[in-house]
């Protein structure tokens, strides 16, 4: 009998241990996913911050550029650099056949002409002389140099030809290949060529959308929250508004995209693909988040503050505007930043209002067509070229970086400025 009891007790203890183990492993799993996730993004993305350059000797021959003697600045601007650029590449292997010459040309980006031009414009005295110029390597060679490209594939399954690899290896041996910090990733707009694609256009698109979103959502949400928390009478309309806010907070984001498409674009005829429309759509999405945060922090202001102000003869409006609202601001602001961070990561509604269009200019205002960082991730992820994989990860790193900064900022505001009532 006693033994049975002990057995039962032991099995109950074992069950207890098992249960605890399940709990621990659930948390462990969740954190494991997070770790794998971040590790994967970083390990594929960090190489995108380096860019491979070929250092090629360029002979600035006036004749190849069809330049007269003593050319003026305008002459240099208008000169033909294409032949010179081609000649430079062909000089890497003087015995190359026509097909091989084509391969040689494709070892660098199509910006090679511009890169050579920039060099000469910086120093016009180079005419007639030879100088080593940095040319952006094609994205495939870039991947080869970073070790991401399977060189042992049969040639017909690769985009890099054996001939290109041979010349490239020679250049590497001569120390004519260099990897430097990839500044163009941050300063160039999107491009079809992976080696020239940057996040400048989508970054500005994101900034403009978020600004529009902030300008619209913040005032409306704060005013609405003040009304609902401080002034609203308890009636059907108020209840209905509250039900609406709670539901809107859980409506899928893509439905807001349909709203943007069906109302903002089709009815109000606002310009497609622009951060203005994107920002308005996002603002409707963030509105409930900010309202809920603002109401919570208004609620946290103790009634004694209001009573004291009222007792001093302030009107209800003065009490609210001079005391309650300023005291609730830290909570409201941090809620706003978190709402904006959500909006910054949103993709689907922006796709529907046309912000996926290929944009290779940097937008200068909310009325110019643009993409946004998450949409850029989507566009690049859908692209088949190998060179875009690391770009996507790098873009994700930039986006996550922003989200982390915004969330930290929200935390700091909350902890530093929020008054503790006890």
């Amino acid at each position, binding site marked *: 009998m006693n033994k049975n009891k002990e057995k039962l007790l032991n099995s109950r203890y074992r069950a207890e241990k098992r249960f605890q183990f399940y709990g621990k492993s659930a*948390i462990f799993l969740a954190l494991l996913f*997070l770790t794998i996730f971040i590790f994967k993004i970083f390990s594929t993305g960090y190489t995108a911050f380096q860019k491979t350059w070929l250092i090629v000797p360029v002979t600035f021959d006036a004749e190849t550029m069809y330049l007269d003697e003593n050319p003026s600045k305008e002459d240099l601007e208008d000169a033909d650099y294409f032949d010179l650029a081609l000649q430079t590449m062909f000089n890497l292997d003087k015995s190359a056949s026509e097909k091989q010459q084509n391969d040689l040309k494709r070892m660098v980006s199509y910006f090679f002409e511009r890169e050579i031009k920039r060099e000469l414009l910086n120093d016009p005295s180079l005419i007639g002389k030879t100088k080593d110029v940095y040319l952006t390597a094609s994205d495939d060679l870039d991947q080869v140099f970073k070790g991401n490209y399977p060189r042992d594939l049969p040639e017909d399954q690769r985009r890099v030809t054996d001939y290109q690899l041979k010349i490239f290896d020679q250049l590497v041996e001569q120390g004519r290949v260099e990897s430097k910090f990839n500044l163009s990733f941050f300063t160039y707009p999107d491009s079809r060529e992976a080696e020239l694609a940057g996040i400048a256009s989508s970054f500005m698109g994101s900034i403009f959308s978020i600004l529009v979103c902030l300008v619209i959502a913040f005032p409306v949400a704060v005013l609405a929250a003040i*009304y609902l928390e401080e002034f609203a009478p308890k009636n059907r309309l108020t209840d209905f508004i509250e039900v609406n806010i709670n539901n809107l907070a859980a409506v*899928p984001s893509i*439905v807001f995209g349909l709203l943007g498409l069906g109302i903002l674009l089709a009815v109000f005829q606002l310009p497609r693909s622009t951060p203005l429309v994107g920002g308005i759509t996002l603002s*409707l999405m963030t509105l409930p988040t900010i309202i809920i945060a603002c109401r919570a922090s208004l609620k946290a202001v103790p009634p004694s503050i209001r009573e004291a102000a009222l007792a001093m003869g302030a009107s209800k409006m003065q009490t609210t505007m001079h005391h309650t609202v300023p005291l609730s601001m830290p909570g409201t602001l941090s809620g706003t930043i978190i709402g904006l961070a959500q909006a910054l990561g949103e993709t689907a509604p922006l796709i529907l209002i046309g912000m996926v269009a290929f944009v290779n200019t940097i937008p200068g205002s909310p009325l110019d067509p643009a993409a946004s960082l998450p949409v850029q*991730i989507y566009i690049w*992820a859908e692209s088949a070229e190998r060179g875009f994989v690391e770009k996507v990860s790098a873009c994700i790193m930039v986006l996550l970086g922003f989200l982390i900064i915004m969330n930290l900022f929200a935390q700091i505001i909350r902890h530093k400025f929020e008054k503790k009532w006890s």
Partner: protein
Amino acid sequence: MNLVIFIFIVLLGFTSYYFGRKKAYSIQATNTRLTALPQFYGYYLAIWCAIPAFIIYSLWAIFEPSIVKLIILSDYSNQGYLDDELNLIYEKTKSLSRGQFSGEITTYLETSAEKYLNLRSIAQNSKVVLILAIIIASIVYGYKRISSNNRTREPVEKFLNTVLFTASLAAILTTIGIVFSLIFQTIDFFKVIPLFDFIFGTHWYPAKAFVRDASEPLDPSMYSDTFGAVPIFAGTFFIALIAMCVAIPIGLMSGIYLAEYASTKVRQYAKPLIEILAGIPTVVYGFFAALTVGPFLKDIGTAMGLEVSAESALAAGGVMGIMIIPFISSLSDDVITSVPQSLRDGSYAMGATKSETIKKVIFPAALPGIVGSILLGVSRAVGETMIVVMASGLAANLTFNPLESTSTITAQIVVILIGDQAFGDPKTQAAFALGMTLFLVTLSLNIFALRVVKKYREKYE
């Protein structure tokens, strides 16, 4: 030009605040008692200055284009044009007047364009004059009304109250906007495709409904067996199911562990770390699922001799499940912590172990709240877009094999609406009909879940 007027009104508003206050101070200087603080007189005048002007300004902005259009098109009214053609003429006129028209320029168009430019400049000038007149009149009126025996605080506060109230209507307006943007297209869609075919049809192939010539009448038989939504409803349900199979056990167990077992220190770090998962943008999950999880599952499948599609429902659903973990863990954590301590104490006093208490006492007590949190998670899974678009297929297969690719409502909306859309085309309308379905499904899930959670809260408060 519009911006200039706007800024002008705002600047004038600020100046009139200053003048109103100044007048109040000068009344005060004569030792007369004011009925409100001097700044209220400033606000009073500023409101009088800016608000009527803004109202005129926005009414003008709303009605000017359609009135101009009406006048321009009245020239063409008795020539038997169709509405679409008239719209085209108007668009041509507009682009010609901007000098961006490339096409055959007829004399008709030229006169219209001239008339258009004329009308616009008349409108612009009369707008400026009207707004100026309104501002002057209302400032004079407001300024005259500033006196010691006139109340200003009450009207100013009443005005502010109205502003606050209007802002709170934004939530209702958004909901109305959603319904309106969806309903017309949906109704048009069901005029062509019978509701029955949509709900029970098993073949979804919207690419077949190519953009047709707008001048030809619609032929509904062209679209038979094209918009049967069963495969995508099934796909949506199936992927959400896979997601919940990942999210419920992990989310619930970590919620329970955090609420009942974890020390404050573990809780302090683990909870925010898990919540990071909820803050990662979904497009990032989509990329992760497409680049890492999909090929990984395919490799495993091939090693085991199974045929796994690189874009499998399992990859999309699994990653979606990871995304939903924090929603369930946080909510169930909250729910469990709010179960009264007396219930636990009672159970411990009877000799139950901690896990027995949790399983037999706390879990049943917290069940409604947990169900609510799970339903909110389901609503998330149903509405999730980017993961499915990027990681699962875009072709709507009617399958319940997790290793094949399926498609969801959200993914189909994106597939149809990406790129250029032609409104009035059944294909575009189909996306809106899907959106309507999605909105109704998530709305009812949310209302139900929130009600369950609310009822539960009331029970213990």
